[in-house]
């Protein structure tokens, strides 16, 4: 991987008017500032400055940072197809289900004559361990912050993708 961390945070602010129509504005902040500093600037300075210009109201905002490699497409295998997905359904600690789809699943991890993923395959085990055990101090979770505890089932499926 030759992903390059982008040097800016992308801040997107969503506003709403009287008719509940929404629109967003965006700007970029330097990464040199810590995220906590960015948060303080947005809430204490930027949003008040925006409200001084607009008569809509600020509903929400987000901070995004990217690591990108735009030259990578040429390196993809001829047989790659992001619409062929490995769909993994995990069970979380709160009992909820969480699904993550791995694009362009390799056929080597699919059991022949089925659409089932071999969850005993070493590469699949490594992925499952990453999702349920994470790394020291950081653990994947559901959207509502419940830790993933086990895999329930894993299948190869075909699903649409954003066109390149």
């Amino acid at each position, binding site marked *: *991987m030759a*992903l390059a961390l982008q*040097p*800016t945070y*992308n801040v997107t602010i969503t*506003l*709403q*008017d*009287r008719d509940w*129509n929404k*629109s967003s504005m965006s700007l*970029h*902040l330097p990464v040199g500032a810590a995220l906590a500093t960015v948060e303080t*600037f947005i809430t204490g300075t*930027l949003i*008040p400055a925006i409200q*001084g*210009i*607009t008569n809509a109201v*600020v*509903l*929400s905002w*987000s*901070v*995004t940072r*990217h690591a990108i*490699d*735009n030259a*990578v*497409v040429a*390196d*993809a*295998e001829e047989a*790659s*197809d*992001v*619409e062929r997905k*490995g769909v993994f359904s995990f069970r979380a600690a709160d009992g909820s289900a969480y699904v993550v789809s*791995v*694009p*362009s699943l390799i056929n080597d*991890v699919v059991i022949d004559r089925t659409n089932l993923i071999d969850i005993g395959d070493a*590469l699949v085990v*490594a*992925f499952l361990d*990453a*999702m349920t055990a*994470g*790394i020291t*101090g*950081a*653990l*994947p*979770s*559901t*959207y509502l*912050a419940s830790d993933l505890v086990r895999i329930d089932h894993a299948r190869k499926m075909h699903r649409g*993708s*954003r*066109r390149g």
Partner: protein
Amino acid sequence: MANARTVAIGLSFADREGNRAKATCYCAFALPEDDVWSLAFFVADKMQAISNGVLSKIELVWRYTIDDPGTPAEESDVARKILMLMTNEDGEVNGIVIPSPGDIWETTGSYAGIRLDLAGAGALGWADMLLVMDLRTEDNRAVGTVLTAGGLML
């Protein structure tokens, strides 16, 4: 202000034909950014091992909501927008668009109603904000610390 319970980690893969698809994971919001990146690269590495697409982007998103946003003005309309123009030290002019401009216009002259009153409270507040944080462009150039003009986008 309230933040989401988790940080969203988007892992985008591309295939040979340039199609792209994203797998999304989440982790605790309180984690330091460096730890989130470490987890993101770790999971991405394990996903890459079972994919013959190629990882093209990792995206981290922290989301926040305003607890009590208040009531928009009766005349508010996000379809109307103002373009704020700032000048940086290199003389470059950069713009930021803000939806639903309020009562911030010049009231006399040829541009009454469509040009930002630079002496008004709104413009002065924006100008002050430019001095607090170094806003950047998408390609990491300085947006500028001088509010040059603002105008209604038609």
